[in-house]
C-alpha cells in the first residue's frame, strides 16, 4: 500500500477511495460556487456507488442535479454549461455509458479550444468508474483509458489510492480543460492511509506527473489504477527472491509522464507495463512505442513486455473472468521472463 515515512510519526487516518473523492468534490464545491455535479442518481440516491453521499443534502438542487437516463443529453448540457462559464462535474454511472455520449466528450469538449483558435475553453470534468468490476460481464467491464488517452485536447487521469483520488479530482476540477477521471468501482471501498498533507483543502496532485510507489533496481513496472496494487503485491513476492521492482503509478494517462518512466528504465534496464484494458492499441503499447523513440531504448537489456486484459469481451463466468484480467501471477511471470529468470 502507500509508502509511509518512518521518520516522522504523525497520526495517519485511513480513508477509503470513495470518501476521498467525496471529500475532494465537497471541498471544491465549497471553494467555488460555479462548480456543480450532475448525473444519474447523484443527488437524492446519494450516488449509485455512494460517491456523492451527503452532497445533495449539503448543497441542494442547484449544485447537485439528478438527470434522466440520457447520457448524450446531459453530457451535452454539461459541455454547454462549461462553455458558458460554469465548472461542471459530469458523472457517468460507469464509463461504459459514456459511449452513449462520446461525441459530446470528444467533439464538443476535447476539440473545441483547438478548433476555436484558443478562444473557447471547456472546463469540464467527466468522472465515473472505469474498467472491470466483478461479474458485470461484457457491456459493463470495458477500460476506456486507451480510447480517451488517444485524443488530443483531453486530459485523462487514473487514480489508484485515496490520495490519488482526492488530489486528482481536485486538480481536475480546477483545470480549465476537459478532464476524464477514470475511477475504479472495486477500489471505492478500499481504505488507505491518508498522509497529513492530503488532509489539507488545497491538496492537489499535478496532472501529468507519475509517482514511484516503490523504489527498485532490477526492473521498472509501470501501471495505473487498480493493477498498481497487484504490481506492488508481485513486487513483494519477488523481493523475497532477491528481485527488486520499481513500481510506477502513472496517475495520469494523458499527458503521460514519460520522463519518470524513462529515468526509471535507464536505471533498471527492464520494463513491464501492466493495465486492465485490452492489449491492442493500449496504454502499454503507447509506453513501449515512446520508449523506442526516446533515450531509454538504448538502456533496455530485453524487449519491453506488456501485461494486459485478455483480448476478449469480458466473460461472465468467474473462472473465465478471473483469467481475462491481469493477475499477480501473470505480472510475476512477465517480470521473470523479461529478467530471464
Amino acid at each position: 500500500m502507500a509508502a509511509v515515512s518512518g521518520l516522522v510519526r504523525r497520526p495517519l487516518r485511513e480513508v477509503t477511495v470513495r470518501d476521498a473523492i467525496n471529500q475532494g468534490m465537497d471541498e471544491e464545491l465549497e471553494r467555488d460556487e460555479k462548480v456543480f455535479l450532475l448525473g444519474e442518481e447523484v443527488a437524492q440516491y446519494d450516488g449509485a456507488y455512494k460517491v456523492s453521499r451527503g452532497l445533495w443534502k449539503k448543497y441542494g438542487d442547484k449544485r447537485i442535479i439528478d438527470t434522466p437516463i440520457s447520457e448524450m443529453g446531459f453530457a451535452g448540457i454539461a459541455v454547454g454549461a462549461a462553455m458558458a462559464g460554469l465548472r461542471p462535474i459530469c458523472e457517468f454511472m460507469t464509463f461504459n455509458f459514456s459511449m452513449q455520449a462520446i461525441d459530446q466528450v470528444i467533439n464538443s469538449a476535447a476539440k473545441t479550444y483547438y478548433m476555436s483558435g484558443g478562444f473557447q475553453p471547456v472546463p469540464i470534468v467527466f468522472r465515473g468508474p472505469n474498467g472491470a468490476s466483478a461479474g458485470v460481464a461484457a457491456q459493463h467491464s470495458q477500460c476506456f483509458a486507451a480510447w480517451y488517452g488517444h485524443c488530443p485536447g483531453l486530459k485523462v487521469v487514473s487514480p489508484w489510492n485515496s490520495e490519488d483520488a482526492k488530489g486528482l479530482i481536485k486538480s481536475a476540477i480546477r483545470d480549465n480543460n476537459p478532464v476524464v477521471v477514470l475511477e475504479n468501482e472495486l477500489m471505492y471501498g478500499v481504505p488507505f492511509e491518508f498522509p497529513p498533507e492530503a488532509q489539507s483543502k488545497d491538496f492537489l496532485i499535478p496532472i501529468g506527473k507519475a509517482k514511484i510507489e516503490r523504489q527498485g533496481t532490477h526492473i521498472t513496472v509501470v501501471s495505473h489504477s487498480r493493477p498498481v496494487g497487484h504490481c506492488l503485491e508481485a513486487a513483494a513476492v519477488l523481493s523475497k527472491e532477491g528481485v527488486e521492482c520499481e513500481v510506477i503509478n502513472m496517475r495520469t494517462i494523458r499527458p503521460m509522464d514519460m520522463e519518470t518512466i524513462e529515468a526509471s528504465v535507464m536505471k533498471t534496464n527492464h520494463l513491464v507495463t501492466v493495465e486492465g484494458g485490452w492489449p491492442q492499441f493500449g496504454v502499454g503499447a503507447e509506453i513501449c512505442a515512446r520508449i523506442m523513440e526516446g533515450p531509454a531504448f538504448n538502456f533496455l537489456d530485453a524487449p519491453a513486455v506488456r501485461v494486459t486484459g485478455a483480448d476478449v469481451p469480458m466473460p461472465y463466468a468467474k473462472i473465465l473472468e478471473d483469467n481475462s484480467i491481469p493477475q499477480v501471477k501473470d505480472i510475476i511471470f512477465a517480470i521473470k521472463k523479461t529478467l530471464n529468470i
Partner: protein
Amino acid sequence: MTLSRRAATEAWRLLGHLKETLGHPRRASWAVRSRRCRQCLCFMRKMLAAVSRVLSGASQKPASRVLVASRNFANDATFEIKKCDLHRLEEGPPVTTVLTREDGLKYYRMMQTVRRMELKADQLYKQKIIRGFCHLCDGQEACCVGLEAGINPTDHLITAYRAHGFTFTRGLSVREILAELTGRKGGCAKGKGGSMHMYAKNFYGGNGIVGAQGQIFEAYNMAALWKLPCIFICENNRYGMGTSVERAAASTDYYKRGDFIPGLRVDGMDILCVREATRFAAAYCRSGKGPILMELQTYRYHGHSMSDPGVSYRTREEIQEVRSKSDPIMLLKDRMVNSNLASVEELKEIDVEVRKEIEDAAQFATADPEPPLEELGYHIYSSDPPFEVRGANQWIKFKSVS
C-alpha cells in the same frame, strides 16, 4: 392403460352377484364360505389394484386428481377488462375477452414459473452464487406472459436488462436461464453472458446499456417514416432506477410520446388486458399501418437490481399495497376460480409442480461446472477460421473458434 372390455364385463357381473349375496341377511353369513363369493372378492381386490395402478401409474397424479377429474369446469369464461387510454386511435382493444380454461392454466403456470424463478435468483444472489448485476422482474409477470400470448413465436423481440421473464417466455428453459445466471456451461450463453445477455431464437436479449431518450426518438422517426411494423413497449414500473418518473420525465404519458405514432396505455398487471392490447397492436402493425406504442403500467417488487434495496425512494406501504391489490398472478387466479375455470386445489398443484421445476433447475445451475478455461477465447467472430487470442501477457494464448 384401460381395462379390457371382457374384464370390465366380468367385473360388473361379479359385483352384481356380490351385492345380491351380501345384501341378503341370511346369505351374508355364509358368503365367505361360498367359493363363488371368494372368487368374487378376489377379483374385486385385483380390480381395485388395477384401477389404482391406472390412476397413479400412468399420470403420476395424487389421489386428489380422481376427485378433480370428476368435477365440471367451465371451458371458458368472458371477462371485462380495463379500457385502454388511446392516443391518435379511433378505437382500441376490446373491453371484454374470452379466456379458455386451457389458456388460463397455461398463463397461470407461466407467470408462476417466472415469479418463482426470479425469487430463486434472489436467493442464489444472496448466497453469492449469482454475481454481478441481477435485475428481477417479479411483479411484472403479466407483461412478459401477456405479450407472448398476443404475438407469434416468429415475431422478434428485444428488451433491456430486466430480461429473465422474456427469456423464459421466448422459449428458453428455467434450467438454461438459472445456469446462465450462475455462470455455468449449461447456461444459454454458455456462462459467458450473465444476467443481462441472454438470447434465443427471435429474442435479441438482454441489453445492459440504456441511453433512454435520444435513441428512442430517432427510432420512432424512422419507424413511422418507413411504416415499420414495430410495437414500441414501455414497461412503466414508475421508477428509473432510484428516480421516480415524475422527476425524470417532462411528460409521464409515455404512450403519447411517440407523437405522430399512435399509442395505448394498458393495465400491465392484468394479463388479459396485456394480451388483448398486444393482439390489437400486432394486428395494427401487420395491417401495414406502421408502428404503434404500448405503455404497460406495471410494478416491480424488487429494487432496480439486487444492489438496490428499493425502499429509499419508495415506501414499503406502496409495495405492500400493490402486492395485495394488484398482483398479476393473484388477479388471474381469482378470476379463474370465481368463474369455475379452475379450482384452488388445481392451481395449488401447479404451484407445487412449478416449485419442483425451479428446484431442479437451481440444483442443475449450482452443480453444473463452469465453462472450460480453454474456451475463454471462443466466439469472438462468427463464421471465421480459428485464430489465436492473446491472454494477460504475450505467453498466454487462447484458441478462438467461431
